[in-house]
């Protein structure tokens, strides 16, 4: 960036973690004024470590940080904030029961006589700031009543309110819907106009190409390239990121659907807040077919999946497996009949994070022969469990230093591979996959997509739910659009155009 001055320079940043892992290996990074600089890399490439160094959360072993050309020592977040660095973490750091205004001013409260909080002034300032950034937010609303997208804007507001000139966003779109992503991009552009410089961490190629002025790619702790969006494309970026040519397009091949395996009829169910979230869902999935459900998050997809696998009791309707009514079957009973499930939230449902890998590899099969035997299946059998874990780890390329590490120490991609390896067994009839690649890097996504297609070709009925419309479009043989608890449209893969499906997702109607 010769035409812009650098507000931030990081030179030769090196960080070695105990155990010898080089998280950052002599990284150079330069951020221009009014620049949106994307930091692209796979999970575990060292992006977050680099930003934690900038924010003072991690001390580098070597290297120098300059702000406006002056070398600075950043000892902690307070230093970083004082120097105009703001950070929006992947997991929001808001107090759910406090209002927007209270969260924003937390630690920098405006007080009147005798230390009394002056929330009215705070609220006015926040409203003004939000308007300047191009969005509206009621400062009096409690944070736990906001959507994730809105919460993120509050985080940005908080950073700007504290005088951030350099804003770091760590995977800001990971939890957002496509609409929310578009809105946040609008906010970021407005911020850039206003004079803020932004570091945008991501592993999503489309987004990076859309929003960034410059893209720096990090692989295994090293900068492997820096590009301007106009001079590059997805394939080149993916190759830089992964270190080898990656196929971004899914080669789905021809499907050969057989008989209807999974059938859902007139399904109605309540959500956790006791609203009727499913209002009569009908669908079927044939053997050897992938049916994808497209929809904006919160339209009942999660509840539908939970009903199918037995985690939620429907109020009405029926679920059938090859003609047999399984509506009243337990989770375990359905699993025995050949229904496997990859849950959306691997850390909450799919894994027990403190457990070592073998126990996680058999988490849903712990009571089956040969993993349990003796005294009527009461005693666990260590050797078969270990053998199976070793086999699955190898087959699904789970990268861990040994089997005897806790699942919590694995990267997100490897955690997901553990879940997928466990669920994608060979005697399956129905495979329910919810957000199978959320938060994963390109290499892992490619791998998991291949596995899903392989299962389909083996005759499994696959029900896919994903917040990534592209994933649904790429993988599915048939696409259903879900809107406010109903299926409002069906597309064959060939005729599903992105715009048509997107419009139906947003409005529930084919034409408005």
């Amino acid at each position, binding site marked *: 960036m010769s035409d812009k001055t650098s507000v931030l320079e990081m030179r030769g940043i090196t960080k070695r973690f105990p155990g010898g892992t080089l998280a950052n290996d002599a990284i150079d990074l330069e951020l221009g004024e009014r620049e949106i600089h994307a930091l692209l890399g796979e999970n575990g490439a060292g992006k977050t470590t680099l930003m934690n160094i900038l924010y003072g959360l991690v001390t580098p072993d070597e290297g120098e940080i300059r702000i406006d050309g002056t070398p600075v020592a950043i000892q902690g977040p307070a230093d970083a904030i004082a120097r105009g660095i703001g950070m929006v973490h992947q997991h929001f750091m808001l107090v759910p029961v406090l209002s927007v205004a209270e969260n924003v001013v937390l630690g920098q409260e405006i007080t009147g006589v005798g230390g009394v909080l002056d929330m009215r002034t705070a609220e006015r300032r926040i409203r003004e700031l939000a308007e300047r950034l191009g969005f509206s937010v009621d400062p009096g609303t409690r944070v736990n009543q906001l959507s994730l997208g809105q919460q993120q804007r509050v985080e940005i507001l908080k950073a700007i309110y504290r005088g951030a000139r350099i804003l770091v966003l760590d995977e800001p779109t990971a939890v957002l819907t496509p609409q929310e992503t578009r809105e946040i991009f609008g906010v970021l552009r407005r911020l850039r106009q206003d004079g803020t410089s932004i570091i945008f961490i991501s592993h999503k190629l489309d987004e990076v190409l859309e929003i960034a002025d410059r893209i720096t790619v990090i692989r295994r702790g090293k900068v492997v390239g820096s590009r301007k969006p106009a001079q590059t494309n997805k394939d080149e970026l993916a190759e830089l990121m992964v270190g080898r040519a990656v196929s971004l397009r899914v080669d789905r091949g021809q499907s050969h659907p057989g008989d209807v395996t999974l059938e859902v009829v007139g399904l109605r169910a309540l959500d956790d807040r006791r609203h009727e979230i499913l209002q009569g869902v009908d669908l079927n999935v044939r053997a050897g077919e992938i049916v994808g459900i497209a929809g904006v998050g919160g339209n009942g997809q999660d509840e539908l999946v939970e009903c199918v696998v037995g985690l939620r009791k429907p109020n009405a309707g029926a679920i059938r497996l090859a003609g047999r009514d399984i509506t009243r079957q*337990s989770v375990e009973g359905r699993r025995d009949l050949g229904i496997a499930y990859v849950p959306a939230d691997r850390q*909450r449902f799919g894994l027990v*994070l403190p457990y070592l890998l073998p126990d996680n590899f058999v988490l849903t099969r712990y009571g089956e022969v040969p993993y349990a035997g003796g005294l009527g299946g009461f005693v666990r059998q260590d050797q078969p469990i270990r053998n199976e874990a070793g086999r699955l780890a190898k087959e699904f390329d789970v990268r861990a230093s040994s089997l005897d590490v806790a699942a*919590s120490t694995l990267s997100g991609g490897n955690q997901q591979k553990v879940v997928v390896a466990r669920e994608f067994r060979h005697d399956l009839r129905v495979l329910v996959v919810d957000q199978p690649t959320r938060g994963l890097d390109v290499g892992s996504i490619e791998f998991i997509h291949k596995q899903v297609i392989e299962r389909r070709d083996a005759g499994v009925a696959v029900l896919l739910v994903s917040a990534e419309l592209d994933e649904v479009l790429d993988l599915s043989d048939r696409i259903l659009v879900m809107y406010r608890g109903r299926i409002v449209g069906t597309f064959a893969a060939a005729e599903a155009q992105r715009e048509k499906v997107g419009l139906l997702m947003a409005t529930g109607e084919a034409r408005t």
Partner: protein
Amino acid sequence: MRRWRARLAPTWSKAQVPVYSIVLAFAVAAVVVIVSSAFTASGFDPLLPFAAYARLFAGAFGSGNGVANTLVAAAPLMFGGLAVGIGLKAGLFNIGVAGQFLVGAFAAAVTGAALAAAPTIVGMPLAMLAGGLAGAAYGFIPGYLKARTGAHEVVTTIMLNNAAALLLTWAVNDLVRAPGFSFPRTADIGQSALPILAGRNLHLGIAFAVAAVFVIRWILVRTTLGFEIRTVGANPSAARYAGMRPIFITALTMTISGLLAGLAGAIQMLGVIGFYAPGITASVGFDSIAVALLGRSDPIGILFAALLFGAFRAGAPLMQIETSVPIEVIDIIQALVILFLAADLIVRRVFRVRAPKIEIVELATVTGSWGAGTPPPGTAG
């Protein structure tokens, strides 16, 4: 030597904070002893803690009698510690050991008295069984309430502790009062008493307790039930997803916990007390919580923690007699141990112990939001 080190490393990494907590507790209690010595007739004595601790040790281990007293005091604490520990494994904090202990002791006393004339081989096992079952039933109540209605076990078990003490007082007064005594109590257990193994008072209960340690350890580590209990404690959502029934496991674990607490009451009754009278001490109930925490809910850890607390009880009288340091110092040490365990950051700072990679579920259950066992954050990103 080095190989031994490598083999012991995982055990040591689990045990170091508890061990250091004990060391630190002794050190801080020593300061209390020194300071308070200035206000006694014998005057300020900076070496008093050494003398006191030496006597404490001698009292607990210095003679056959001392060892016997240590084991006798440790036995109910092992059962009680296991009761609390297995609950913590499932993410449950059973504060009701005191109540379940009393119910178990009472049932054992009444059954034992009824079979006082029968041979020991008949009366003693039946009295033990009655105590265990009564405790199990009393543990089932809060387990069922939690599973069905979500009523928090901490609240319900505290209430049930009071209910047990008062109900049993009424029962002894009005239902099973033995004639011929000036105060309300049950009849003698006679032949139903636990046989003496050695010395004056070392009864069979310690063997039962040690056996229980290994049975519970086997269940937790080696069986599918133990896997279910641990999974429900570590991550109830994942347990449900895996096809387990957290509701059932919760109720069952509280019942097992009550069973163990009831057995603690039964061996204390059949091995030491001999009859039930209102006001018998249920301090075992609360010491059990300390034992479970010190043992990190691990059965082997609980075995050693119970032996330590048993040694405190057995050695303290000699310490008081020979050095005039009051028995209450033991309570100070015990309290400090738990304090340092809960505030393990202090211990880690003092002894430069690195934080574990994995949050300890059991302690999170107690110190965190009651029973909600927050899963440790992942390392994604």
